[in-house]
């Protein structure tokens, strides 16, 4: 049953917050190298889904497989953090550490790299996200767009196979959105497997292999971008798109 090419498989996932049914029987499969964009109205469970995938959130029933390994015990969950990188809406950089130390903390402490190796790797990824000459500054000295690119580089330093993005640009001023999306597109073109929650539909057209539309805790529709934007099947999805594409 397990297909070698599956990077992530979510089967019949259910999640309650108390009485509130946040994820209803959600099933999603992501192949290696596939780029997924998840969209949907606020409160539809997009964040909850990707937070369940990398075990930041517990769920009530269903199964999650990452690289064919089921995430259920401490051992597999601890391993997940070297397989999956995560980028948050609020960046969540460590404010007391320099940019360089933000990037090397995980590789040194969790992967056991030497300081020199970790720093070399960090400088590489900083170059990749087009941050140069800022390595010794504190995060607060950087603009929002720069901070988010540092956060992406911090994830990449763990050399994950899969990247998750939770609305990576929605905390940014409009003029900084493009610089962050460009970096993500770059990653996508390099074949990184990724799930990105975003309402940036131009980005979705450019980078996504497949769209997932969620509403009220359910996956309503999944399709290739062209088909998704031109001929959305469900009514809810049509309404959502007409709202979001107005601006």
């Amino acid at each position: 049953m397990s297909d070698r090419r599956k990077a992530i498989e979510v089967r019949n996932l259910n999640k309650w917050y108390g009485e509130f049914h946040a994820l209803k029987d959600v099933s999603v499969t992501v192949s290696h190298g596939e780029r997924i964009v998840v969209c949907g109205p606020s409160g539809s469970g997009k964040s909850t889904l990707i937070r369940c995938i990398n075990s930041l959130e517990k769920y009530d029933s269903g199964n999650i497989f990452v690289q064919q390994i089921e995430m259920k015990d401490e051992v597999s969950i601890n391993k997940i953090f070297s397989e999956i990188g995560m980028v948050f809406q609020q960046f969540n950089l460590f404010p007391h550490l320099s940019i360089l130390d933000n990037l090397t903390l995980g590789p040194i402490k969790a992967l056991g790299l030497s300081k020199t190796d970790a720093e070399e790797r960090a400088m590489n990824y900083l170059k990749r996200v087009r941050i140069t000459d800022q390595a010794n500054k504190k995060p607060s000295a950087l603009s929002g767009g720069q901070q988010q690119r540092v956060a992406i580089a911090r994830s990449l330093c763990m050399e994950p196979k899969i990247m998750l993005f939770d609305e990576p640009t929605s905390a940014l001023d409009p003029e900084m959105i493009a610089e962050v999306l460009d970096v993500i597109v770059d990653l996508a073109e390099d074949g990184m497997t990724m799930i990105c929650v975003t309402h940036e539909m131009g980005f979705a057209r450019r980078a996504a292999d497949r769209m997932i539309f969620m509403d009220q805790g359910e996956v309503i529709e999944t399709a290739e971008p062209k088909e998704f934007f031109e001929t959305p099947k469900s009514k809810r999805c049509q309404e959502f798109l007409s709202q979001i594409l107005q601006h």
Partner: protein
Amino acid sequence: MKLKFSLWLFIVLALAGCSSQPGIWGWYVIDPRTVAGYNNIRFLLNGFGATILLSLIAAGLSMIIGLMVALPGMSTNRWISFPSRIYVEFVRAIPLLPMLFWVFYGLPVVLKSFGITISIDAFWGAIITLAISDSAFTSEIYRSGIQSINKGQTEAAKTVGLNYSQTMRYVILPQAIKRILPPLANQFIYIVKMSAFASVIGMQELTRRANELVVTEYRPLEIYTLLILEYLILVLIISFFVRWLERKMGSDESK
């Protein structure tokens, strides 16, 4: 500022009483110009050493116990957080003096029944009691300091593979320390004041020495006035340090 003002007010009033009604004051007991007065004041001031040492060691222990109580206390797993809750509620409910008696007179008996023969002297008896009693408060200080750090920090630490103790050590505590240190230093004032209770089990600190001198000199007013001034000076120095710490930590935050 307020404290400084009250100190001056106190001194002025004391001196006014001293000059206007010479009948009630007998400062000669601690007048350093006489041999007896000099010896008396030396005897009293020598208590500073014990009070400070006692308070420092108790505060250090309280900081360690407090952290050990606070960390499991924040677990979402009830079986792990429950003992900490109980500890804080229990310790907070016990008045210091009964606890001091229990530790000094009772604990050695309990230990003996386990085959451990340790005599607890006044010094360590006082330290253990002060540390335990204070730890309920320090643990709450740690808890609120740590909980003031955004949950996103813990999550980001997890996503770069850090385990619980690494997350605490490299990410959470270095940030929370700014919120923790000033109130911890403030809590030190509480320990200094409570250390006076050590006098009842025979610890030769400031209060005990004052009591002993009162018994031989029959001048409680002057001696206890000086005793209060001694604590006042100690507390003023600490609160000056706390202010400085608060300013330093506050200005770091904006960087």
